[in-house]
């Protein structure tokens, strides 16, 4: 069947959706265009059957719609196009996988860090003081507590290990003899390691420098 650029108007003409001006233009057109007239007659025949037998023809679709679409659901459904709904579903599925699958894995896996070139799994300890330069040799070292039944090992370094001690508190007083070996103008660093009651290394702090200024 041949084509005419005006044949898009056929449906709107038959459904009375054209403005009066457009309607008259199209009527004048189909008096001169056998292609449009032939298609219009054929379309009109289909439309007439649909209008008068539609309740029978589309009975299954109507029933399906009544069951599927309550007014509220219909409004919700109309909010997005099916493509957008599909995208939303995929996004929701990905989020679900992340929340249920990936995040628990992240939280249950302990951070990894190195101690003396050995890979260690465990938590970290936050050092409280000293963490910046100090004017005088500090008398006490303090860090964040990891709870009960934890043994801490503190190590103070100059260029090499200067002193090491263990305690179950989250602080320790620097013994006088060690304090006397430390001098102003030097850079020192310290680190704390935590061990469980069974003696397993469970956490390590970073090694923090504290220069003793003059």
């Amino acid at each position, binding site marked *: 069947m041949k084509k005419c650029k005006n044949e*898009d108007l056929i*449906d709107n003409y*038959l*459904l*009375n959706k054209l403005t009066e001006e457009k309607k*008259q233009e199209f*009527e*004048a057109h*189909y*008096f*001169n*265009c*056998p292609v449009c*007239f032939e298609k*219009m*007659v*054929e*379309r*009109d*025949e*289909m*439309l*007439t*059957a*649909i*209008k*008068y*037998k*539609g309740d*029978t*023809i*589309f009975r299954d*679709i109507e029933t399906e719609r009544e069951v599927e679409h309550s007014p509220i659901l219909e409004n919700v459904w*109309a909010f997005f*196009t*099916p*493509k957008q709904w599909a995208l939303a579903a995929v996004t929701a599925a990905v989020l679900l996988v992340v929340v249920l699958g990936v995040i628990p894995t992240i939280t249950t896996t302990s951070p990894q860090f190195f101690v003396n070139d050995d890979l260690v799994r465990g938590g970290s300890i936050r050092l409280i003081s000293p963490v910046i330069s100090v004017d005088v040799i500090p008398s006490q070292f303090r860090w964040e507590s990891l709870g009960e039944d934890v043994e801490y090992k503190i190590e103070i370094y100059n260029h090499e290990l200067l002193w090491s001690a263990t305690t179950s508190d989250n602080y320790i007083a620097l013994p006088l003899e060690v304090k006397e070996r430390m001098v102003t103008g030097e850079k020192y660093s310290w680190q704390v390691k935590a061990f469980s009651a069974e003696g397993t290394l469970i956490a390590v702090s970073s090694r923090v420098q504290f220069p003793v200024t003059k």
Partner: protein
Amino acid sequence: MRSEDNLSINTSADIIGAVKETKRPQFDLEEIIAKYRPIVSFRVKKSLGSHTPDWEDVVNEIMVNVLEKLNKGEFRGDSSIGTFIFTITSRRIIDFIRQKSKVLKYAPEPNPYPSPYEHIENKERAEITAKAIEKLKPKYKKILYLYYYKELSREEVAQKLGISPRRVSERVNYAQKLLRKMMKK
């Protein structure tokens, strides 16, 4: 009102015979009637509604008028013959509505979907078309349902089905093509 004269005008020969020949026709009148009578009928039915009992008389009057004017040489070729007949048809429809308005106070409301059950032939045709539509695949049936039965716009149908408006037109045209094939069988 259906006149006695118009009742007897049913064929091309009747219409040509009813025209008082004053000039030798420059046109093949039979061909003009064969080609334009269906178009004029469609336009009249669309404007007046096929429930208007006089619509066939109006069509006959128009065709007689067209031939008379052609014989009198009133068609000078300024426009196409189609436009010439369209103009005569439009004027007669307006006259008819004006006449009816005087009697009925209000003009008859055009019926966009003439009932197919007025003529037994149309009824049968509508039944066959309806059965063919019922046999279409759901995706074609659904588009006919939304576009023609529910009268949603092309864009609304597109949004409901998640396809482009152009695809809606293509699907409607394809459904029509399938129906054409089914009806030919």
